[in-house]
């Protein structure tokens, strides 16, 4: 008699926000083999960016690659395009971009934490985290005009300035958020039933993470200190004194803690960016067309987001290549699922915070 049993999960499943299909080979309760199919959301954005849309529009199109990290995609594209054009950006615009980026990171991390709590069976914590997440959504709406798809960054600067009212609102919401996240952190740290679901589950060792090229909070939870914000000065992180967060356990609990601590770090970054917000223009005049090749790396909530552009002085680009963090993390995800209990699979998948619309584009 066959000893193993195949269990499919997805493409439509209550625990998944997005269509992804896993095929688990289970022996009793233990997962021994995993196959992942991530291509359900492939729309063909990369080709359309070079044929249908002009280079000034592409920044808004690539934002639709992913709704969770929309601003990060458009920032990454815009920075790469500005490098090709030799475009100057006012310092105020850089700071405003940083604030928008970090607000986005906070809301993405909070969503992931809520989702992990839900998949561990803690519905009340899900509701609570989502309620506190509304604070940062309000701040985003006040600053950019929309809740998820902002279209805030444009070539040469940003599209909206912030007034003193909006600044006060952001500060007030973030102050509230800091307290609330502190309470949530205590729950994640000390709740006994959560610790049963999280501690020692879905472990990726540092060596495994390194070999499978894990990125972002995934790698930082396993003890690999890799953060693009540390490595390249694409936005003024160095001036604000950015410090990355690492843990060493590599389980779901460590990933949650990395995300929680990063929320605090992001709040601190936004507050100090607001303190030292330079005066001046928010956008410079755009001259010329892009020519040559460039690449740009930006730290998305899930890890390193990579853009490669090629252009030859036309309105249309020759090539846009997008490499997103989840795509790099899929092998690590498969590695972590092997040997885990089948019942833990939704929580492990949620703790990776997979973004399939990024992955498949």
């Amino acid at each position, binding site marked *: 008699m066959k000893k193993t049993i195949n269990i499919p999960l997805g*493409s*439509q*499943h*209550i*625990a998944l*926000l*997005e*269509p992804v299909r896993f095929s688990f080979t289970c022996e009793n309760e233990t997962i021994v083999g995993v196959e992942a199919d991530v*291509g*359900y*959301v*492939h*729309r*063909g*954005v990369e*080709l*359309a960016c070079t044929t*249908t849309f002009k280079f000034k529009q592409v920044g*808004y*199109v690539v934002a*639709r*690659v*992913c*709704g*969770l990290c*929309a601003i990060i995609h458009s920032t990454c594209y815009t920075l790469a395009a500005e490098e090709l054009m030799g475009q100057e950006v006012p310092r105020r615009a850089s700071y405003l971009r940083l604030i928008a980026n970090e607000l986005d990171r906070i809301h993405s991390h909070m*969503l992931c934490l*809520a989702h992990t709590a839900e998949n561990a069976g803690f519905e009340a914590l*899900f*509701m*609570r985290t*989502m*309620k506190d*997440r*509304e604070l940062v*959504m309000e701040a985003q709406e006040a600053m950019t005009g*929309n*809740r*998820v*798809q902002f279209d805030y960054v444009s070539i040469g600067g940003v599209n909206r300035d912030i007034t003193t009212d909006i600044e006060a609102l952001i500060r007030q919401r973030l102050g509230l958020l800091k307290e609330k996240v502190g309470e949530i952190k205590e729950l994640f740290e000390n709740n006994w039933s959560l610790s049963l679901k999280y501690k020692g589950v879905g472990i990726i060792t540092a060596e495994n993470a390194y070999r499978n090229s894990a990125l972002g909070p995934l790698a930082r939870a396993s003890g690999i200190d890799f953060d693009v914000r540390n490595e390249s000065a694409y936005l003024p992180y160095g001036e604000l004194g950015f410090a990355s967060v690492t843990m060493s356990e590599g389980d779901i609990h460590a990933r949650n803690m990395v995300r929680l601590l990063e929320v605090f770090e992001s709040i601190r970054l936004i507050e100090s960016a607001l303190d030292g917000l330079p005066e001046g223009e928010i956008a410079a005049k755009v001259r010329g067309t892009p020519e040559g090749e460039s690449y740009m790396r930006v730290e998305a909530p899930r890890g390193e987001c990579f853009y490669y552009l090629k252009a030859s002085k036309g309105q249309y680009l020759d090539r846009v290549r997008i490499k997103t963090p989840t795509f790099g993390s899929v092998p690590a995800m498969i590695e972590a699922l092997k040997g885990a209990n089948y019942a833990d699979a939704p929580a492990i998948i949620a703790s990776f915070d997979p*973004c399939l*619309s990024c992955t498949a584009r």
Partner: protein
Amino acid sequence: MIAEFLRRFRKKSPWVLHYNAGSCNGCDIEILACLAPKYDLERLGIRNTGNPKQSDIFLVTGPVTQRSRERLVELYTQIPEPKVVVACGSCTCTGGVFRGMYGSEDGIDRYIPVDVYIGGCAPHPEQIIDGLVQALEILEKKSKNVEQPKKLMGEISERDGGIDKTNMAGKL
């Protein structure tokens, strides 16, 4: 009498099946935000369920991608009558920014009949609630006649002893 009994309950607690047919996640996280305490869809009795056989409202996001259209049609056919389809987001209604891309199919109304369209990229949670309230009214009116999905069925053929689903969505 049982039908009348069920109809009363259906109005009070319609369950939603959410399917992402290739959207950018923007609408999906707004739907999650709707379920959360600030907007709280549960006060209308609406719950998110993962099982098509238990749901009344089919909430779809995203332009249909080539990979997901068979699943979309299959999920639609699995939901028991009467059912209401809500298209959430600009790209679900018309294809939006993804219109004409090789992987996307310009909106779900090419495959399944849509009752409520919610525009916006991404729609505000209040818009989503508004759309779902409209959907509730439509659900109440709908008779028990089984709707024939338009442009839906290709030929259902058999393969390996089961139904072959590859051509289920039909050719346009």
